[in-house]
């Protein structure tokens, strides 16, 4: 497949993340730190999960439900970790405001604007997405730079590496924008947002089981992209609502 195709697959999986990083994150050092630590955190979570499951692998079974248990457990663990991530963020945010207060004259407006908070959430989500892409797609991509290609029997329409990159792209999108929705949900106490994120994550995980069926990826991958679009749209709606609220609050005060 050669180097060209290898770079192509890597770009499909991580290109949008790269664009996001270059256009938004790279301008603010705090966001770069957030992305890096988030990536590290979520990579560690995946490694811990694979460490725990190592004892049970390889799953020598033709049934699908052991994989379902694996996915449910892993996603539950990650969602729990997301809550912890939120708590860590609140702690840092509090400390940051204290430090800034101590060094400056009293000012009336809050240190962190809403858009800043959203950007931090976006950076956190980007870290989560990049960790997923690295773990599930990039780690398998080395053979793609060689001469041969590979087709899986159960999905022989597309090369294996392309399927892997496409699925990774869908998940990157889901994770990146889920974090924005989730942080907003915790901050506002909005139950819908708080439930939306774990549910979408769980559904997306279970949808990948469809790929186990022969020819299932024809349905599985479009479904994943449907979920990604759903996440994007929900996030967009939420951001619009919050920004217009803030604006009207400001103009109203």
């Amino acid at each position, binding site marked *: 497949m050669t180097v060209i195709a290898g770079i192509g697959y890597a770009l*499909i999986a991580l290109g949008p993340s790269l664009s996001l990083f270059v256009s938004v994150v790279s301008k603010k050092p705090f966001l770069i730190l957030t992305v890096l630590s988030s990536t590290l955190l979520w990579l560690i979570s995946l490694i811990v999960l694979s460490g725990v499951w190592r004892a049970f692998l390889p799953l020598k079974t033709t049934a699908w439900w052991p994989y379902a248990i694996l996915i449910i457990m892993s996603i539950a663990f990650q969602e729990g970790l997301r809550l912890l991530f939120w708590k860590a963020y609140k702690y840092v945010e509090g400390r940051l405001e204290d430090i800034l207060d101590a060094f400056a004259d009293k000012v009336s407006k809050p240190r962190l604007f809403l858009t800043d908070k959203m950007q931090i959430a976006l950076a956190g989500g980007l870290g989560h997405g990049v960790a997923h892409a690295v773990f599930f797609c990039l780690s398998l991509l080395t053979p793609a730079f*060689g001469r041969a290609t590979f087709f899986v029997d159960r999905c022989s329409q597309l090369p294996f590496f392309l399927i892997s990159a496409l699925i990774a792209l869908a998940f990157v999108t889901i994770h990146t924008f889920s974090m924005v929705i989730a942080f907003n949900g915790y901050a506002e106490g909005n139950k819908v947002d708080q439930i939306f994120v774990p549910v979408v994550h769980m559904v997306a995980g279970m949808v990948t089981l469809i790929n186990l069926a022969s020819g299932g990826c024809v349905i599985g991958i479009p479904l994943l992209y449907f979920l990604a679009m759903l996440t994007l749209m929900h996030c967009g709606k939420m951001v619009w609502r919050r920004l217009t609220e803030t604006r009207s609050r400001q103009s109203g005060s």
Partner: protein
Amino acid sequence: MDSNLIYLLLFFVAQLHLPLHAEGDTRSLESVPDLERSMYMIVDGYPCVRLLNLSGEIGCSNPGREKVVAPIVRFKNVNVLAQSSAVLVSLDEIQSFFTRLSNDSKFAKNVAGVLIESGSESQMKLKGFSPVEKFPQAEFAPYRSIHYEWNPIGSSIMWKSYNFPIFLLSQSGTMTLQEVASKNENNKKSYTADVAEFDLVMQTTKSGTHDSESCLKEGTCLPLGGYRGSVWSSLPPINVSSDQSKPVILTVASMDSASFFRDKSFGADSPISGLISLMAAVDALSHLDGFNDLSKQLVFLVFTGEAWGYLGSRRFLLELDLHSEFVKGIDSTLIEMVVEIGSVGKVFNEGVKTFFAHVAGVSSVANETLNALQQAKDSLKSENIMISTANSSNPGIPPSSLMSFLRKNSSTSGIVLEDFDATFANQFYQSHLDDLSNVNSSAIVAAASLVARTLYILASDDKDLSSSALSAINVNASLVEALLGCLLTCDPGLSCELVKNYIAPRTNCPSNYVGVLLEEPSATPYPGYVSDVSRFIWNFLADRTSISKENSASACPKDCRNEGEACIGAELDGKGVCVISTTRYVPAYSTRLMVDESGMWKVMGLKSSDSMEDPVWTESNWDALGLRVYTVQNGAYDRLVLLGGLAVTLLAYLAILVSRAFIIKVLKQD
């Protein structure tokens, strides 16, 4: 709006009637190296390598330094090759393929590599196949009719030079490649193809040395030969201190074969059937006593390298002239008679085993031998054996080691025992198909019995030999069966009990190809450089022709250094037995080669004593030889993927810019 979307999603999921259990594909990949291994399939194959002589080269090689990669097509399914391809040829098509290759240059230009199938069904369809010439090694014949066709089925395809790789596939490799070729033919996707990757890079091609002299000078090739190749043994052991004046009867066979594919040349009928006959005859004679009282000395000689310019026999004759230590105990002037056992595995003719004696030198000695043969045959009444003298319309003796003796001294008396008269009975002469199924064990037993009794008759020189004396000489048929299994199969092959009693073999599959000389011949050989078969024959002959020492078996090889002693089974950790035996190795390499001061092989000038030019066969050096098969995407698809990745990245960037501008606009509206 959200709830509508959720209903839509549920609707979708409900539509799925697909079975959600994993399908039967049990191949589970557990790591990235696993993934790579399943992407690149390594195929078992036997390569054809580059061989050179003084005037040029033969055999196969990759055209440059790189591996050759080409899509696989079947020869029977293509008329014209549209692109550079790897052609899969089945056994019965070999002849037509090579004919097409030499006649059709447009076809030949697009042949990037060749894969030849093996298989028992196609083998049965094939009447015969012999890649050598119609008169093999005619330039060494002691007579002028070099256009006589001893091997009419010979196609000479082995003696051409090919600048692409050719591999013979094993059984498993054949099945794999047939599946892959079908996959290629049924492939609906135009952007993938299954290709074969050939690694047959030859150093002489890389360095541009295209004949023996230049490649030996550059060090890119090695000369063919058996390091401790040829073996001779005397029955009874020669007492060097006493005067040697008994006339010597030389019994000769050879142990090497050649084939188009370097590692698959069993040479069952030609010449291993003769070798096994010789070994069984020695075994039969070893049970007798009183050899010291016989009027003649029996010496058994097994040559290697005979398929490549009679390296063994010609070097042996040279060493005899030089009175070197390798041939200590044989006086060339005392050699009275040469009895050569050629191909003897195919003698059946309506239930009667007919052997043919090809005679050289019309003399009383030759007649005496023929009479002895008849006498031996008569004593074997129950075996249904016939002996005939070869047809007088033959130009002379068939290709055999005796030719070297005759070229040296045209008055040598000799007889070559064969299973054919005017043309070879072996339809697979020097091909990879001359295997166990091509010989008959009872024919070999018959030949061995004939030879053993004939030798005894000749050696005792007694006209009134009693039939009881002769009937005591019996060939062990189970020994012949065991030898067939050891020397002509891969299972048990060289790990059979008979061989393991003497040596520690390095491989299972006997390859009867002479191989290359890794070091210059010197007094003490490094056992790693001597071939398994040579070592086995040495030990076997030493054991059979031995007299045990007075003080019982002393530890070997430590206490076995006296003159006339030999250590049998020296490799078997402490189980070696020291016996009295005259069994020696003789090097087998070109008479025109020597090692100069810097340790490099050098081709010497033609000496006036050499009646003909020795071709000086060498084999190119190579690194690793292999064959892989994998699927490949075409370049256009790769570029499409890259384009897709770039497009996705750029679109995302644009979308982000648009969103950011929008958000700023929203915020600024107040």
